[in-house]
C-alpha cells in the first residue's frame, strides 16, 4: 500500500486526466473549497466535506433529458448523450460515500434512471479521511463504499483501493513510499473509536417520529423559523427531487430536469389547485420525516448520513441535526 505526499497525490490525479474527467477539492479565493478540475485551483484535500452537494457531480442541478423538434412527427427525439470520459471524483467523506451509495440504490430501484447512470457508471469515487478534517479533526474512514481512499496519517496519505477499477489505477502509482505495516490498521482503530453522538441523536429522533411522539405544534414552531430559502435541499447529497421543464434553444425543444425543493409551496400543487403540502408546517415536517421515518419504512434505514451541510448553511439554525436535538430535548 502506497503512502504519498499531497504533491505526489496531485500528480497522480493529474496524470489520470487523459482517461478521466477528474474533479478534486480545490481552494477558492475566498478561502472556501469546492470541487473543480485540477488546474482550476490548488488541491485542498484537508478540511472535511466540501460545502456543496457533492453528489451533484452525478446528479447535477440541471440536466438535459432530451432534444427534439417541436413537431415531434418530423424527427425522432434525441436523448441526452452519455458523457465522454468517465468521472474521477476526489473528496467524498465517509458520510458522503454513504450518501452516494444510497442514491445509487435510489436511482436504480424500480425504474433504473439511465440518465443518472450514464454519468455514474464507470466513474471512480475517491474518499478522503484520517487526520485531515476541519481544525485537524479525524475524518471517519469510508472503506469499501468508495473505489479508492486516501487516508491522512497527519503527514502523508495512505492510498487504499477497494474496487477492481480502483486497484487498477492505484497499482500504476510509481511515486511515494510503501506504508508501514499496521499503519492503516492503526488509523482504522482511530476511526472506529470516533464518537457516535450525532448518530445516536438522529436515531433517537427517528424513533420519536415513528412512535408518533412529535406533535404538530413542534413542526409549526420549527416552520415559523423557516424562510424557505431551500438551502437545506440544495446542499443535501441525498436530496433527489427534481422538476421537469421544456425550453427552446437553437431552434430545438429541450427537456431538462432541475433540482426542486420540498420546502416550496408549489412543490406538490396540482393544476386543480389541490396542494397536499400547502402549509409550511407540513413541508417542514416532510423534510425531516422523509429522512427519519418514511425512508425507514421504505428502505429500512434513516437516509440522513449526518454530513452536516444543511446545519452549516441554514440561516435560521433548523438543519436536521439542530431540529433533531430540539426534538429529543423536548420529547425524548
Amino acid at each position, binding site marked *: 500500500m502506497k503512502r504519498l505526499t499531497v504533491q505526489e497525490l496531485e500528480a497522480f490525479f493529474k496524470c489520470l486526466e487523459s482517461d478521466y474527467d477528474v474533479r478534486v477539492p480545490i481552494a477558492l479565493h475566498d478561502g472556501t473549497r469546492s470541487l473543480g478540475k485540477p488546474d482550476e485551483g490548488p488541491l485542498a484535500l484537508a478540511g472535511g466535506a466540501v460545502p456543496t452537494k457533492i453528489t451533484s457531480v452525478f446528479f447535477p442541478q440541471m440536466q438535459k433529458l432530451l432534444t427534439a423538434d417541436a413537431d*415531434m412527427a418530423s424527427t425522432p427525439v434525441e436523448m441526452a448523450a452519455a458523457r465522454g470520459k468517465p468521472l474521477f471524483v476526489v473528496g467524498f467523506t465517509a458520510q458522503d460515500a454513504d450518501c452516494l451509495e444510497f442514491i445509487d440504490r435510489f436511482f436504480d430501484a424500480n*425504474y433504473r434512471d439511465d*440518465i443518472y447512470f450514464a454519468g455514474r457508471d464507470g466513474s471512480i469515487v475517491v474518499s478522503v479521511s484520517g487526520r485531515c478534517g476541519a481544525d485537524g479533526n479525524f475524518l471517519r474512514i469510508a472503506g469499501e463504499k468508495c473505489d479508492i481512499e486516501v487516508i491522512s496519517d497527519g503527514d502523508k496519505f495512505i492510498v487504499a483501493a477497494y474496487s477492481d477499477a480502483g486497484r487498477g489505477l492505484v497499482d500504476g502509482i510509481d511515486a511515494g513510499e510503501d506504508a508501514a505495516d499496521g499503519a492503516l490498521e492503526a488509523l482504522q482503530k482511530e476511526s472506529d473509536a470516533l464518537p457516535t453522538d450525532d448518530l445516536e441523536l438522529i436515531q433517537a429522533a427517528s424513533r420519536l417520529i415513528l412512535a408518533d411522539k412529535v406533535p404538530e405544534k413542534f413542526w409549526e414552531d420549527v416552520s415559523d423559523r423557516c424562510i424557505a430559502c431551500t438551502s437545506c435541499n440544495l446542499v443535501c447529497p441525498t436530496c433527489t427531487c427534481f422538476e421537469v421543464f421544456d425550453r427552446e434553444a437553437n431552434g430545438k425543444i429541450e427537456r431538462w430536469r432541475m433540482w426542486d425543493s420540498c420546502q416550496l409551496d408549489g412543490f406538490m400543487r396540482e393544476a386543480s389547485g389541490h396542494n397536499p403540502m400547502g402549509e409550511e408546517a407540513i413541508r417542514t415536517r416532510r423534510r425531516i420525516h422523509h429522512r427519519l421515518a418514511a*425512508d425507514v419504512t421504505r428502505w429500512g434505514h434513516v437516509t440522513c448520513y449526518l454530513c452536516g451541510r444543511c446545519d452549516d448553511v441554514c440561516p435560521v439554525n433548523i438543519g436536521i441535526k439542530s431540529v433533531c436535538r430540539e426534538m429529543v430535548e423536548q420529547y425524548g
Partner: protein
Amino acid sequence: MSTAAASKADDRGLVLYRPFMCRVESVRDLTPSEKLFRFVRVDGQPFGHKPGQFMQVSLLGIGEAPISVSSSPTRGDYLEMGVRNAGTLTNAMHELKPGDTVGLRGPFGTFFDTEGMKGRNLLLISGGCGLAPMRAMIQYVEDCRGDFADVTILYGAKSPDDVLYKDELALWQSSDKFDCRLTVDAVPGGACWDTNVGVITKLIPPLAIAPDKTTAIIVGPPIMYRFVIIELHKKGISDENIVVSLERYMKCGVGKCGHCTIEHLYCCIDGPVFTLDQVAGLRGAI
C-alpha cells in the same frame, strides 16, 4: 464504489424519459371544459395498459403531465383520455386536432386488480373527473361481464352540465349489465335533470350490499374519499375491500422526482391504485 460492474446498461440507449410518438385519432367534446382524446401509437404497437394506470403526456415545448387512461385495453389498440382544461399542458392539449402528434410515456403505476375481483360484486364510485379513469374499468367490466357478480356504478357531478360521458352513462343506465345511479350536487335554474340531486354519499345508504362479497372502487376529488369511505364502513366493507385511486402531480412517473410521495409511498409506482388498508393512517393520503 464504481457501479460499472453492476451496470444494467440498456443497449437501446437512454430510454427512461423518452416519449414514444402517438397520433391523435379523434377529439370529442365532453363538456365545455373537458375533451376526450383518442390516441394510437405511430409504430402501431399496443399500449399495454390496464384499467387504473396513467400515462405521461408530452407536448414538446409545453411540458409533460400525468393523465389517467380512460379506455379499456379490451376495446382495441388505442388509448383514450378524458382531459379537463385545467393547467398549462391540458390547455395546450385542448388545441390538438386529429392527425396531430404527441408523445407518451407509460403506462405507469398500479391498476385495478381485475383478476382478484373475479366473482365479486363491484361498487364503482366516481365523482367529477374521477369518471375518466373509472370509465376504463367500467368498459373492462362491460367487456368481461361474466367475470364479475353484481356491478353497481355510482357517479356524481357538480351540475348536469358537468356530467361526463353522458351518452355512455345513458347506456350504462339502460343496460342490464349494471345498476347505474347518478346524482348532481345542484341543479341550476333551467337545467334539465330528472334523477338524484345531492352529494354522492346519499346514493350509498339505499344500496343492499353484501360486504364480504363486495369490492368498492373510489375515484374522485380528494374531499370525496373521506365521506364515501365513512358510508362504505357503515355498510361493513373492510379497508382491504375498498380500492382508491390517488392522484398526484407526478413529474417523472417512475419514482424519482419525489413530487407524488405520500409518506413512504410513491404514488406513481406504488399507486395510484391502492387498497385503503395500504394508505389508511398515512398523512395526506385521504
